């Protein structure tokens, strides 16, 4: 559905496209928690993508998370990476990764260390209107963590 990379970077772009498709199809973390400590819903009014994120937090680490995404391939793939990597992460680490994702998209900085699946999004650099597609799940996760912090 989203051929941003294929037209931008030729065959290399298509390889990333396949990686992003695979991540989106995995939909790791899709679902809902029974008793979340924090929950957030964020949407992008320009493209309609929306992410609902739920977290359980134990000792400043993410103990469990679940998300429900309606959106494009990039948004669903980014949420899937969160599903694979964020459980066990400290809140500070999520903040750092989120900043790293923005740097990768906006300034072609190297993908943030540790969450290697995020390198699939490197070719999105230069497609400004798509940056928020990747960032939306991270913003939702941070908002859910803030909500969990306020609960305690």
């Amino acid at each position, binding site marked *: 559905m989203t051929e941003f990379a294929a037209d931008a970077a030729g065959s290399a772009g298509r390889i990333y496209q396949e990686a992003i498709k695979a991540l989106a199809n995995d939909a790791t973390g899709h679902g809902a928690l029974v008793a979340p400590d924090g929950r957030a819903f964020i*949407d992008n*009014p320009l493209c*309609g993508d*929306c992410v609902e994120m739920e977290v359980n937090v134990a000792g400043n680490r993410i103990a469990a998370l679940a998300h429900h995404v*309606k959106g494009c391939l990039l948004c669903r793939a980014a949420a899937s990476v969160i599903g694979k990597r964020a459980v066990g992460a400290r809140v500070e680490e999520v903040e750092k990764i989120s900043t790293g994702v923005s740097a990768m998209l906006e300034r072609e900085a190297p993908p943030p260390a540790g969450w290697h699946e995020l390198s699939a999004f490197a070719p999105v650099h230069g497609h400004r209107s798509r940056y928020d597609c990747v960032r939306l799940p991270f913003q939702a996760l941070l908002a859910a963590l803030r909500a969990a912090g306020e609960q305690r």
Partner: protein
Amino acid sequence: MKWVLYERLRAATAAGTSCAVVTRLADGAQAFFDGARWEGAVDLTDAQRAAVRRMLVAGRSGMLPGEQDLFVRSYARAPRLIVVGAAHISQFLAPMATLAGFEVIVIDPRRAFASAERFPGVTLVDEWPDTALERLKPDVTTAVVTLTHDPKLDDPALIAALRSPAFYVGALGSTRTHAKRVARLTEAGLGDRVARIHAPVGLDLGGRAPCEIAVSILSQVIQVRYRGEAA
């Protein structure tokens, strides 16, 4: 009228679902049709059922054409036009369809587009199309048109529309775009229903401006409403 049918009729009209009652004049036996399912004591042929459906879609009551003995009473609400996508064409289509007697609902989760300033006097829904259509339940007097330019939003709307009894389903996009769409919807298990989609949407009036495309869409919706799909 049998109590069971009366209850069905009352429930359907209360839910805002157009429906019809067919009475066999010889013995007063009746059948009930809610746009999707039939029940009751009168067995009709497929051709008779199709004819009743056409009358209901058009909001007409009377003797079933060609029959001496079957009276159709349509309980049809004002026809609804559900427009998916608060796009340029929709800005013309929504007021035109309202003037033409349709109840118009515009669905678009892109809140920047679906603003009250751009669509004065129109019911706006900012849910995702699949969620919205599940709630709105397109019935046999509902037309659904997708105009978002984004398969991410058009596809879930078309899937919901094709699973509903909507009398008209149309989708904006070129023949090439539509071929890809048909492939995706077939993969989604709707291969037997994709032929219902009017695409490229609208009558071929030759115009290409958004207001002209709106006229062509509205014309086709009205044509199908009164003339049926064979027109």
